[in-house]
């Protein structure tokens, strides 16, 4: 009996650890293929850059430098990427970008790791 409780607990723990690892890997972009990552980086610099600047210093859209995003959680940023900001020129990218990809792009912006 005790042994089976331990084994259940162990399984839960394993699941938790695996879950944590999975979410961490999503943040690191590991759920996204290398070639897709390259396309997304290019999209971030070149296409997001059309409005936000190739160096994210702003344009028609606001600057997206890490120092200016300090109080913005990744979830908030990825929600804006996916659904846009109605009433502004920021479109909803959901038809072109998955939620996991949007989270990864948000983490790149927060870390300022564009190149």
């Amino acid at each position, binding site marked *: 009996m005790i042994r089976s409780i331990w084994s259940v607990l162990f399984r839960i723990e394993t699941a938790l650890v695996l879950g944590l690892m999975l979410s961490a890997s999503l943040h690191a972009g590991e759920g996204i293929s290398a070639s897709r990552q390259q396309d997304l980086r290019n999209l971030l610099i*070149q296409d997001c850059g059309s409005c936000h600047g*190739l160096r994210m*210093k702003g344009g028609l859209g606001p600057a997206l430098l890490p120092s200016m995003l300090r109080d913005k959680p990744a979830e908030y940023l990825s929600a804006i990427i996916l659904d846009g900001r109605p009433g502004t*020129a920021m479109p909803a*990218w959901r038809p072109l970008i998955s939620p996991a990809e949007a989270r990864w792009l948000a983490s790149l912006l927060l870390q300022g790791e564009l190149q």
Partner: protein
Amino acid sequence: MISPRYWLLLCLLLSLNAHSRGTGDMGVLIERGSSSLQIIETSGNTSVNRVVGLGDLSHASVVYSRDARFAYVFGRDGGLSKVDILSAELTARTMQSGNSIGGAISQDGRLVAVSNYSPGGVKVFDADTLKLVADIPATFGADQQRSKVVGLVDAPGQKFVFALWDAGEIWVLDMTDQSSPGIEKYRDIGRNPYDALITPDGRYYIVGLFGEDGMALLDLWNPSSGVKRILPDYGKGEKKLPVYKMPHLEGWAVAGDLAFVPAVGRHEVLVINMRTWQQAGRIKVHGQPIFVMARPDGRQVWVNFALPDNDTIQIIDTQKLAVIQQLKPGKGVLHMEFEPRGEEVWLSVRDEDRVEIYDTRTFKRTATIPAIKPSGIFLTARAHRIGL
């Protein structure tokens, strides 16, 4: 023993020879990936040189001095650079703002104006030295906010015309007296003007609106009659599609009495009758149009598109008002520039790091030039056209 006089003569001849070519078949293409531009020529369709160190060139644009020797490059980071395209030298450069979007050269060629996002306004420079001549902050409202400035063009009478994205205004700046510029303001022209163009005769200034349907029209021959709204209800009641890149209105596509402009949020090119300013048609196209540009003879209109359709070009026959050809030059077709008489067109294919040249009659590719994330292409024929 060779006399010093002979050496002097030889040096003089050599220096003359170094520049002994016209610039009428030359141009530049922006390489936004490497803060550089390539100097090109259209007689042999080759790249002749590269100039580096031009800063952030996203959305960079170029105007030419009236002798078509100097290219003024407007960078995103507020950099204004003057490049000698014969010697491939950067002859002057100034960081004139934090964030800019484009520029224009005056009718007499002596002034270069830049439209700025931050701080919002227009700055005017001496075309020779790039010294500041006038600073026009785009302030609006009771608390004197500053607006981003878009759609800056030159107009006859030593004027510059531009629109205020945040304020919904058109301003006409008269630089006849450099020490005391005149400003005429037109308010409530519509929400979020995103770009503008001027007709080749310099008479009509037309502003595209992002925040609502339709366009705003100012007749510069009759400015007292004010700004008129045209195409107020194109696509009214239809759901707008997401716009992944702001359309551009530079490059007025005119064929006879018809003008062709991109619809915003719709996969259509709009046709305007320029006598009545009424809509004369809607042409279904492959995606959200970005540039809608007429071949110089007006017989064809070439259209490129926003993501996810930016690998495609469609060609509209202006008599049939229908798409007659579709090309797939490659991923990220950003810009098109026709050679002055229209037999060939240059296309930048950003994501594949090359520029393609097509024959506009056979639609066959005639040459390829490697380039680093190429965007805008600007030929010197622009030097002699109003609004370019």
